[in-house]
């Protein structure tokens, strides 16, 4: 089992925040031996995951990343260092405890040593939105409706109506312009696909 020689703990002043609040807290670092580290990375992360049952797919996202620089990029053995921080509380999604899934918020602190398995700490908090603050509904949220009125005519009615109109229009057109239309089409055909020979008879030929 991996044993860290650097210990990291994190404390948030509160366990509940509203959107737009300032989240204050501290990250405490203690090293058993000298460590070179750039600082501590804070990640504000939401996660929607199952409340019960197995094989439920989860969603997650990071809304804010902040690096707390460590002075001198060095942590001396035997000394404790406390780094205070302030972050704006996110705009959503709100913490939620549903029957099939829950939305939880965490603030994660990780020592930046270049080692992906470096020491880390996590603090949970509840987020409730503030009514006057713009709310974020999730990564796949789309505002579907720009119009409020919805008119529905049964589909069969529309199809039947359009078909009837087409037939009616066709009948009227043929009745009114049938002869002229036939004559026009024949003359058009003759103009492009036929030539008159010297005797005045029509002879079909292919265009050159």
């Amino acid at each position: 089992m991996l044993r860290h020689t650097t210990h990291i703990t994190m404390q948030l002043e509160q366990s509940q925040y509203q959107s737009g609040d300032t989240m204050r807290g501290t990250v405490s670092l203690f090293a058993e031996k000298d460590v070179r580290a750039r600082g501590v990375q804070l990640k504000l992360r939401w996660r929607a995951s199952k409340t019960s049952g197995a094989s439920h797919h989860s969603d997650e996202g990071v809304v804010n990343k902040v690096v707390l620089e460590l002075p001198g990029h060095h942590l001396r053995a035997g000394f404790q260092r406390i780094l205070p921080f302030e972050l704006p509380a996110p705009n959503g999604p709100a913490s939620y405890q549903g029957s099939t899934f829950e939305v939880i918020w965490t603030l994660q602190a990780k020592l930046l040593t270049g080692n992906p398995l470096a020491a880390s700490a996590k603090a949970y908090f509840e987020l409730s939105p503030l009514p006057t603050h713009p709310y974020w509904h999730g990564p796949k949220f789309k505002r579907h409706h720009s119009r409020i009125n919805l008119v529905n005519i049964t589909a069969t009615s529309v199809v039947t109506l359009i078909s009837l109109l087409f037939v009616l229009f066709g009948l009227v057109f043929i009745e009114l312009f049938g002869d002229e239309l036939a004559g026009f089409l024949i003359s058009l055909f003759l103009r492009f696909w036929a030539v008159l020979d010297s005797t005045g008879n029509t002879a079909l030929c292919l265009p050159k």
Partner: protein
Amino acid sequence: MTFTTLIARLSTHTVNPGDVLTCELKFVSWRNLSVHRVRVDLHAIERYTMSSRMPSTSISSMPTAGGKGRVIPSRTKLTTKTQTVFVRTFRLWEDEKLKAFEPLTAALELKFPKDAPYTFAATNNQLLWRVIIRFYAGAMPIWRKVIPIVVTPADK
């Protein structure tokens, strides 16, 4: 052949918890019709994706060129399930005889609970609010329309 027109008008598509949403319905048939019922549901669901691992199977009875059985590798099957978390039902126009071109109108007040959870939409987990209008009449098939609603804590 039946010609019908249903107009559904919502006062808004974005509400706050505790708000009242007005839904106006106007129904016109182009011939005499017997309306069995119109049902309007205010509905909230949790929709989530689950995966189930389908085990690899060996079909040894199927002869192949190499003389060995064919093996279908295991794969993951994704299924989307829904769970209703809130429903309020309204019934209208039960067993009404409707004359041609005589409109039926109604206005419903859909009240959202004060603790209504906010709309949430992620890839695999969603919380959705909607108004579902179902129409039952004569020989007509059931007509169903779903209108999404956004529940938000912010000002509309």
